[in-house]
């Protein structure tokens, strides 16, 4: 019994990481209607940038975020303005193809520079600390921290989108970029900022992932898949939904792994399919009355 409780708690905490992967994807799709196939590779890219920062400066992984976050933001802004803005239009296919190509480019560059070796960012004893809840049930401090970061991230994004001038500009541009221009909103700049913001989330998620698990240049696509599943289970357009989607995925994977270690990923996909069968629009679809 206690073992299962343990499994489920671990799953929920893992879900926090998936929610972080998913939140960036959801913002990119929500604001620009752009399906970012290269999302997982950007997460891995952030992890490698952190690795370089750590190797050159000797700081701890969390401190490296002070460099990784601005680097990823600037990269995202110019990626959007320099390339992706030109792919946007009525057709969803061009951005799909371009980000798919970008995914291959990033993977190969990372392989070329860093080789296929598996890497891990080390955060010292913090990684293995745990809190004992009851007899036989304890949770890792680091997974808990990841989950709390995910919660704070989603609350912060919710506030940003609902309460700030920039958030209103994001929503208005997403609704109707032409009319947004009549308000004085430069939609190309707003798209750049949205991608920059998404890559801030990617930077945080990438570094936390890299402390938690091994990574190498080829693990991007599976992160993309987890992010997709979390976003779609949550219902496109709902940030809280991405957290719930992430948690369902995390719990399902942990249950699968408990039954048989080979079933971890499979159980995640099965949970995804079950949710889609019963709720084709996800659990919290955005209701729009237009």
């Amino acid at each position, binding site marked *: 019994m206690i073992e299962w409780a343990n499994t489920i708690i671990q799953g929920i905490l893992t879900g926090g990481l998936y929610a972080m992967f998913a939140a960036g994807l959801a913002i990119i799709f929500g604001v620009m209607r752009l399906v970012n196939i290269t999302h997982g590779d950007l997460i891995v890219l952030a992890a490698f940038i952190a690795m370089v920062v750590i190797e050159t400066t000797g700081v701890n992984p969390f401190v490296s975020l002070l460099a990784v976050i601005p680097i990823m933001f600037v990269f995202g802004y110019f990626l959007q303005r320099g390339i992706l803005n030109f792919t946007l239009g009525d057709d969803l296919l061009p951005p799909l193809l371009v980000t798919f190509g970008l995914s291959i480019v990033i993977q190969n560059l990372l392989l070329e520079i860093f080789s296929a070796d598996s890497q891990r960012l080390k955060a010292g004893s913090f990684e293995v600390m745990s809190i004992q809840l009851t007899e036989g049930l304890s949770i890792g401090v680091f997974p808990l921290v990841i989950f709390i970061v995910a919660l704070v991230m989603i609350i912060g994004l919710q506030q940003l989108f609902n309460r700030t*001038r920039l958030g*209103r*500009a994001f*929503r*208005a541009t*997403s*609704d*109707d970029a*032409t*009319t*947004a*221009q*009549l*308000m*004085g*909103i*430069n*939609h190309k700049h707003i798209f750049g900022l949205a991608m920059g913001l998404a890559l801030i989330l990617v930077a945080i998620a990438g570094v936390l992932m890299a402390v938690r698990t091994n990574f190498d240049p080829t693990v991007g696509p599976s992160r993309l898949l987890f992010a997709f599943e979390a976003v779609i289970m949550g219902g496109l357009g709902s940030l809280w939904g991405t957290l719930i989607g992430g948690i369902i995925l995390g719990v399902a994977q942990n249950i699968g792994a408990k039954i048989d270690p080979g079933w971890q990923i499979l159980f995640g996909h099965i949970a995804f399919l079950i949710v889609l069968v019963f709720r084709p629009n996800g659990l919290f679809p955005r209701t*729009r*009355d*237009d």
Partner: protein
Amino acid sequence: MSLLEIENLTAFYGDFQALFGISLAIDKGETVAAIGANGAGKSTFLRAITGLVNFRADKFLYDGETLSGRQACDIVGLGIAMVPEGRRLFPSLSVEENLIIGGYNQRSGNWNLARVYQMFPKLEQRKDISGTALSGGEQQMVAIGRALMSNPDILLCDELSLGLAPIIIKDIYDALPSIQAEGVSLLVVEQDINQALAIADRVYCFQEGRISLSGKPEELSKDQIAAAYFGK
């Protein structure tokens, strides 16, 4: 000196020419109406002024400055605001947020939320619901308020009466004098000729991408207008 002075403006959608040499001028504080049948090019003309449609013009002066080639998002900051055809409120934004985003450019002036609510009291009660959940007339009020929030010197209104009941149209048009009183110039596009003639200092009639008639309402006869509106 005219606030807005345009000479020989042409505009295309791809190969299709929508406007053939439009010349038009508006003075400070003046109200000008543009009338014309479906497809005459009125909306295209307003979209050209606001930078949403590419155009060529021999002269395009606003407040003495040449405006050609500006990005659409820079136009509103210069004092040119538009109430677009079909209102085009932002569905994800509440009524109040729709108004607030009208002031996104942060141009200074007399308009603010309180004044818009004073002009359209109905909106204040409904400020927290989605703009698109309102009735057509109320949506039009939001669209006008949203444009005013940018503190424009000239307001372009594209078919304020579109799809509205006559009694609602009257409510909307009753708000215009208080806008005119601020010294704002108005360029009002209308299919409803009587409405247009009632408020305008001068009228231009569009026909198939050209101006077929212009003048003061009191100087134009019904027959002249009918001929200019429908063609021979």
